[in-house]
């Protein structure tokens, strides 16, 4: 276990001051479910000192709020809180569903949505949903505030465009059109406490004639960077989700995956499975 200096921040201002004061040495810690695993693997002999800035208990980053058609989620809201929030279960059920499938109860009680984003694991379960929602991440530093679309925030596996000294304070997104149906599906090696080998989020809204007028589809794990998959969305827009279209989507998603991630050892397994879960996830929305 690496040696550290531990600092607990009780406000956003204090956290930013710590980040500034310990520039070059500071590392944010939220629930700790990823950071502790990394620290354990690092050797004590790493000579550069590390200063952990604990932001988990900053109350200003722990709220779930509604402002008109905008939903704001503090970055320190835990997976359990999102999974159990009556408001989010009603407004964005697939976000609650995704968060209810992260790790086990102990991980969900500590793991936060902000931590899930900043850790930038390609297998993060909340991310495809937030991408489908076109979420924005809000960052604060001693230089001020900035907002970045989540889709642009990820620059590669385990890499984001967060700057040194910056703190992710909240995530915002617009409500889905009234009457949208959503789903989140994940495939892991076991049914509980597993890391997603594939996951996807989908939301669909139909007009009075039954034609799709809002479609959002995002996949994680199988893409180098999570993104909305317009190739799938455009198949459905203006049409009804017929079995023929579902079949097309099933084939298309496999092509998209191979195009972006290349042929791998696992492709023989993943290609049909991502197709099947795409089919059944969209079919379930009818």
């Amino acid at each position, binding site marked *: *276990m690496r040696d550290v200096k531990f600092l607990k921040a009780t406000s956003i201002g204090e956290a930013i001051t710590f980040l500034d004061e310990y520039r070059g040495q500071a590392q944010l810690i939220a629930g700790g479910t990823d950071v502790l695993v990394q620290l354990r693997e690092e*050797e*004590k*002999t790493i000579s550069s000192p590390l200063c952990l800035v604990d932001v988990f208990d900053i109350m200003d980053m722990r709220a779930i709020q509604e402002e008109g058609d905008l939903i704001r989620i503090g970055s320190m809201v835990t997976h359990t809180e999102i999974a159990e929030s009556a408001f989010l279960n009603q407004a964005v059920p697939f976000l609650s569903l995704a968060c209810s499938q992260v790790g086990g109860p102990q991980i969900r009680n500590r793991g936060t949505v902000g931590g899930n984003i900043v850790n930038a694991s390609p297998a993060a379960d909340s991310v495809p949903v937030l991408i489908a929602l076109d979420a924005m991440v809000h960052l604060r530093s001693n230089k001020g505030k900035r907002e970045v679309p989540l889709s642009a925030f990820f620059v590669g596996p385990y890499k984001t465009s967060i700057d040194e000294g910056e703190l992710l304070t909240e995530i915002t997104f617009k409500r889905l059109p009234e009457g949208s149906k959503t789903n989140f599906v994940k495939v892991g090696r076991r049914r509980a406490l597993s890391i997603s080998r594939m996951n996807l989020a989908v939301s669909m809204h139909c007009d009075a004639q039954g034609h799709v007028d809002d479609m959002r589809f995002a996949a994680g794990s199988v893409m180098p960077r999570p993104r909305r998959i317009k190739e799938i969305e455009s198949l459905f827009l203006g049409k009804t989700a017929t079995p023929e279209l579902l079949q097309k989507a099933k084939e298309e998603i496999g092509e998209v995956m191979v195009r972006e991630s290349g042929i791998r050892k696992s492709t023989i397994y993943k290609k049909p499975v991502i197709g099947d879960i795409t089919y059944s996830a969209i079919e379930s929305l009818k």
Partner: protein
Amino acid sequence: MTDYKYIGKRIQRKDAKAKVTGKALYAEDMYFQDMLIGKVLRSAHPHARIKGIDISKAQALPGVVCVLTAKDVQGTNRYGLAVSDQEVLVEKKARYCGDAIASVAAETEEIALEALRLIDVDYEVLPAVSSIEQAFSPESPLVHERLESNVLQKTKVRKGDADKAFLEADIILENTFTTQCVEHAYMERECSVAVCDCDGALTVWEPCQYPVRSRRQIAKALGLKFSQVRVIQSTTGGAFGSKDDITTSIHAAMLSLNTKRPVKYAMEREESIATSSKRHPFRMECKLGATKEGKLVALKADIFGDTGAYSSLGIYVVKKAGLHISGPYEIPNVHVDTYTLYTNNVMSGAFRGFGVPQAHVAIEIQMDILARKIGMSPIDLRLLNCLRAGTTTTATSHCIPHSVGIDQTLEKVKPYYDEWKAEGGLSR
């Protein structure tokens, strides 16, 4: 039904209350005054000659009380359950990545781990034997130079005349089956606490399966009299066969002897998985002959078990598979050879079932293939061939006086199977 005292009754475990309250003492829960923390440096290579070990930097680290290598072992430095082929601390060459090169006792865990990183080992990396096929290859090096090949044991099982019987068989199935290495993954990591008194007598607490056997191995390897070593089995958090082997106790004991202080040595999960014995990976070449009515007439099999760098109980595990590859079926003609092979893989030893699960993979899949081939229900095929009172076993041709149980079990399962089949079975 007879009213038994225990059978059919819900019996409360004696230690259940201690366990649900967290009061049960596992070795890691023991603390002594002035207790040191022990840690062990494991080989960085699966097969390597040790040309030199420099412990000076580790010894100089404040908080380190002792650093030990093979030179410091007073006894035979050898142990093992079936063959004394393991070394407490490796002298000349490491045979797998779990081999112990040096051990350290320090005031804290952090210092002990830091000391391990300061030990410089000069390795001459040797080509490694990493599969059953390689173990047989004449180009492969010997894992143990005391033997002429990497074959640790070969056992024959013979009954009737298999070659002749195959000539009369209507159907012959020839298939090769492989099974993989499996980790026991008991919840409790290996841990031992050793306390040495002023006369040099040792008391060791360890989670184990057979304290007397540990006691014998520790005494001999470390050069102590049997009467100088006491081994106490601490509450054991799962073993499943693997804690039959010596794990941490011998190192904790040696460190305590050399420091005259209590020493606790607990493995982290990674070390546990890298060093502990596993279920043997098998390769089974299996030939089964039957009449077109489904009566088994002959079985021929070659079983190869990869026991890794050390025997552990690998001699007996693989031998036992040879006795069980005919399954719970009566086969009049049997010809089986079993081989236990040394490789530079992680050691394999005892694991629930002791070689039998692997053998059953082969015979039961063969039975299903046969059933499909002759168009017979797999349950009927098994009922036709299974051992019953009055039939004879494969290995000893011992006539079974009582029921075996499989016939009654299959009869009970049959209606459920038939119903499932009628509803479409697998294609449902």
